[in-house]
């Protein structure tokens, strides 16, 4: 079956990202397709490559990046939510005159239309949030 996920909270503060990640892995293990993972609200904070969690803790951004590489997942940060919160890729940084970007490998930035489209194209859309 074709599934999409919506992740509405950043890593660590709420369990949402952990739950979504474990759900995604379990779905892939069962042979389902993950059509898209859309990150909205504080969820865009999952897309940073600058996190340095303690050695004995999980690194959620990295886990998502690795899962994306392994399964060719489409990880999308909402552009409006990302801009508000300081998550930028190289192009966005240049366009807004910022001297750095911070997006992690495997994530891309796009519009909210990608969420609606995921809802239309997928058999199920599951939301993880606060």
């Amino acid at each position: 079956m074709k599934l999409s996920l919506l992740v509405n909270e950043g890593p660590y503060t709420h369990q949402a990202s952990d739950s979504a990640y474990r759900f995604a892995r379990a779905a892939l293990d069962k042979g389902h397709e993950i059509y898209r993972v859309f990150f909205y609200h504080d969820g865009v904070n999952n897309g940073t490559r600058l996190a340095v969690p303690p050695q004995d803790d999980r690194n959620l951004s990295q886990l998502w990046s690795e899962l994306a590489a392994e399964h060719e997942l489409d990880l999308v940060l909402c552009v409006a939510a990302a801009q508000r919160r300081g998550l930028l890729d190289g192009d966005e940084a240049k366009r807004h005159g910022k001297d750095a970007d911070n997006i992690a490998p495997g994530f891309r930035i796009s519009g909210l239309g990608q969420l609606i489209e995921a809802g239309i194209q997928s058999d199920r859309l599951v939301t993880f949030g606060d």
Partner: protein
Amino acid sequence: MLHIVNKSPFERNALESCLRLAADGSAVLLIEDGVVAAASNTRFGGMLADGMKRDLKFFVLSHDAAARGLAPERLAPGVETVDYGGFVDLVTSHDTVQSWL
């Protein structure tokens, strides 16, 4: 339809709203802090029992219950446990999924 509740009913109104607005026969999955609603000996045990009378089915994500020290024998009667694979099966076997954030 599958309803997902991830908040403690002692802290927030999400479970109450879910039970109020879930059609008879729906499935309700408790995850994250929502699992504490499934403990047998609180006022929410009774709320779940009322739900079962109108054919609601209750599930608890076992990993989240274990994390909070809620052993299976503490869960209210009639509540089923699922792992993440079972969570996926619940999602695929119901046409629509609503998370009560």
